């Protein structure tokens, strides 16, 4: 289970990076990055997973006393929550930039935005 999730996550990262490195369209690059960050999130959560345990919520099913032996690691989940929100922020920013670039240059092709170099 963990291996499947983690592998999937890493594969998503690689696919995302591949897309980001080979698509010259800016929007497609951004799409690829969202896939890669989804992959990262999957990896993060899978690291915290422990087989046979439940979500880290102390309700009637999981009394406080037995929490240590019955819940999974809550920390990666907390981290992923943060990572997702930050990912959205960065995506939004990149999109805004993409639009602005398009307005200036009338193109979405990143290989044409090379006036700064050397």
């Amino acid at each position: 289970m963990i291996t499947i999730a983690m592998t999937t996550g890493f594969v998503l990262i690689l696919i995302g990076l591949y897309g980001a490195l080979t698509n010259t369209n800016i929007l497609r690059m951004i799409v690829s990055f969202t896939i890669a960050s989804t992959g990262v999130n999957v990896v993060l959560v899978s690291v915290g997973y422990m087989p046979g345990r439940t979500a880290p919520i102390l309700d009637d099913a999981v009394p406080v006393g037995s929490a240590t032996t019955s819940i999974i690691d809550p920390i990666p989940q907390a981290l992923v929550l943060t990572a997702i929100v930050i990912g959205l922020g960065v995506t939004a920013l990149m999109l805004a930039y993409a639009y602005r670039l398009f307005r200036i240059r009338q193109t979405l092709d990143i290989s044409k935005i090379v006036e700064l170099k050397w």
Partner: protein
Amino acid sequence: MVSAIFIIVVGLGAAFALGLLKDSWRNGAFALTMAALAVMSWISISWLGALASGAAQPTDILTAGVQPPFAINLRVGLAEAGLLSVITLTGLLSALYLRDALMQQGRRSMAVLLIAIMALSGIVLTRDIFNLFVFFELMVISTGGLVLLSDDERAIGAGFKYLVVTQVISILLLVGIIFTYHAQGSLNIDDFAAQPLAAKGAGLAFFLLLMALVLELKPFPANGWALDIYESAHPGFSAIFSAASGTAAVYAADKVLATGGAEWLPLATFIGLFTFLASNILALRQDNDRRLLGYSSVAQIGLVLAVIGQRDILGDQFLYIAGGILIAHAVAKAGLFWISGVITRRELTAWTVLRLNPPLVVAFATFLAMLIGLPPFPGFYAKWELAHHLVAEGRVAVLVLILIGALIEAGYLFRWFGLAIKREAPVARPKYAPGKVLVIYAAALLGWYAGYRWGALSQYDNLLQAMPLMVALGFLLIEGLPARIKNVIAIAALCVWFWLSYGSFDPLQMIFGVIFMIGGAVIFLASFHETGRRLGFYPPAMLMYAGLAMLIVAESSFAFFAAWEVLTIGSYFLILRGKKSEPHALSYLMFSLGGAFAILLGFALAAGGTAPLAIADLAQVTGAVAPWVFVLLAIGFMTKTAAIGLHIWLPGAHAEAEADVSPMVSGVLLKAGLYGMFLLLMTMGRQHLFGVDLTYVLLWIGALSALLGNLMAIFQEDAKRLLAYSSIGQMGYALFGLAMMNHLGWLMALMFVINHYVYKSLLFLSVGGVAKRTGTRDMYRMGGLIKLMPLSFIAVLIGIITMSGVPPLSGFGGRWIFYNAIMTADARLPMVLVFLSGPIAFLYLFRLIHTIFLGQLKDEHRQLKDAPFWILLPQMIYVAFLLGFAVLPGMALRRVDAYIGEHFTEQGLSWEGLTITSEFGYWSPVQIMIVIGTIFTLLFLLLLALNHKAQWVKQFNIVYAAERPFRPETTHFAWNFFAPYRRALGFLLAPLVTRFWGAITNALHETAEFTRKLYTGNGQTYAVHVLVFVVVLYLVAGGIS
């Protein structure tokens, strides 16, 4: 003391509060922003003060009221407080600088700025790795926002590239964080340290983590995105990006590296050095000022990373060294970016406009000196300590690479300074926004203050409390006074300094002291000739003399080296003042700094540790290291004396300098190198490397310098160049004498020290005076000036008689001692060379009289008057001195002779009355004077008798009889005077040395040109670079697991 968390609270609170203000009420918004930044700065600085003085202890700040690692904690120690101060102050000043842009874009951009500074502070404060990630993302995003402040539309592209790359970095970082967490069971950085990363996969996780953090430092070659930002962003923001972001990112990398254990440090060292060298080389080809600053930023951060890689051996000095470099870089880079913001065009030559505002030039020079680590700035102390630690631990290779990089960096930075000072400046003085200029001055002052603090912290003397340096710097404050008043003060300062210090001089110091101080003062008499304010002359001149003054009294290697750098930098600025001296001044500086680095390395090797080393203790250096110390120090000193091979800077630098500067740099400054050689040979004596007696090598170098220097001089058409080349030869003699390592040799070297000062100053002044009147230095444009400039003629005549070593003047004394000396040495071949060069000197010296003063007067020179009074006055003093010294050489040499006698057992000279006796014969100056005088008088009378019918003939001017010739020199009788010799000996003059150094420079430039093609400008390619960087290091490190 206010808790440091309020830096974050205030930053965030103000940013949120800005949203409540009306969008139109921008003044209020700006005031709020500034107030918040001021509070943040104040908190940081008060912590810094308290921690530095011991009033406070490093403090952990818990959040959520729970102990770490279960809740995030922050920490303020000395390092954190220092960096926070840098970050918040940069933010504060940049905000002031960005005022217009911020006002125009409104409160949102102000909020972004506040959050950026807050985030950078958070990066420094936090001890939690994921929290670090959050602050990093805040930094990234706010960078994305602040890039928009630029008017340059290309910044949008740069910002996007940055975002692309940081996405890749974030992915690596998060993967690294989570697996590190899995291995450690904690996200707290301090817990990493407690538990070595043993678990499987932990190494790789840590590697990814580290790579992500290192990538934020813009390592070469994965840094194209950063350069694009530097080039296009608003300079006010670039200052933050370089000074504050760079600082924070370095600290983040350091924090994590510190926990990873020593096995990760070599990786950091490698990346750091590679980046430092590569970026500096790349910067060589930059014409865009901001991009150049970008390369320099990247390089400096690389340097700091390399220093971090040495933290295992730096011990408690780590903070002092890394902090010194980092703070110097932050202040200087911020300052330079701020200056670039008041300059409208982007090519380096556009900086000429600074000249219309001299204080800005001072600020510019301050920042450059800080970057390169010149005294008295923190980088200097850091460089010194670093060198000693590295050498003590056997990491000489690291040090050498650092020094090479620093030299390249100095090359492009000072080339830039040269362009700014020498290229044509616009006429109209631009109007600078007062706020911006104020910020620049504030940075410069902070730089000086940092230099003062670092000096106070160092285990050596605080350079900024050294009196000569203070006096020299004081001249910056009185630049507004008329030149003549400043001249009086300068002369007085030199005399007073001599008077204060001569009591403790030994005879050797006395001779050099007199030349440096009193000799300097005499040359200053010529400076009375200049009227107006003569901006930019006295501070560098006094800086040079301060260096010389400090050099003589230096007792420790540190003081000596500091003085050496001070005099180098002062003389560079001085030489740069010449009309066409831009390339020559640069080459002078490059050689001198290279030499200085050799000295640094030599001293570090000699010290063998980090304890201060007294110059006298050089004598105690033994073992395998001793000859290397000798070689390095000798190379360092010989760059100053322009020994052959290291000489190519001299002719241009001396010839192109101003009329009164040439004698300073030739007559006075060259002696600094000889002084060093004296000390070196006196303490270390003969050293053997691979079985070769190194003094024997020096002997050869001296002989070759004498021969080739003189040979090159005879083919010069430019009078000052001729004198310059002759200096190479003369210094060769002195070196030769020293290298003989016997009593008479040394005495002769000292004789040369005195004589060369006098006649070279004399000749440079008189030739300078003639050049001032005729408007040219080319001898074929002169002629027949004897009657128009009789005093100059007499001066030159006396000068060349002395110099060529014919009786009756003191030059002969030198020669006489010299011939005695070589009879006692046993190196035949070099001796022959030295003998040969004697007559060669005749050939060119005679031209000075023959071509300039004799022959036909040029038509356009008919109305000339003799040189100005103030230029003549010191010449006449020298003439008088030479006559006196010819009769009474004993007045100086006797005591020295005895002093040298302490070092050499063999018989010196015996001084009885006016007669000097050696084992080979005797020399009685008075007798010689009388004999020669008699012969001369007789001959003169004879000539008069023979020629009593001689009559004056009007000169018949053939030059203008017909059309003006296309090449006037070809019609002059004395042009290419020694063409036959050139045909015979020209092969000796093939500019091999020049070609050699030229090839090195070219190779560097070619490398730069080739390498920078890496930066295609394509953001995707940059992302590939980032991955390549990580993957290659992963492979190099052998597939960490």
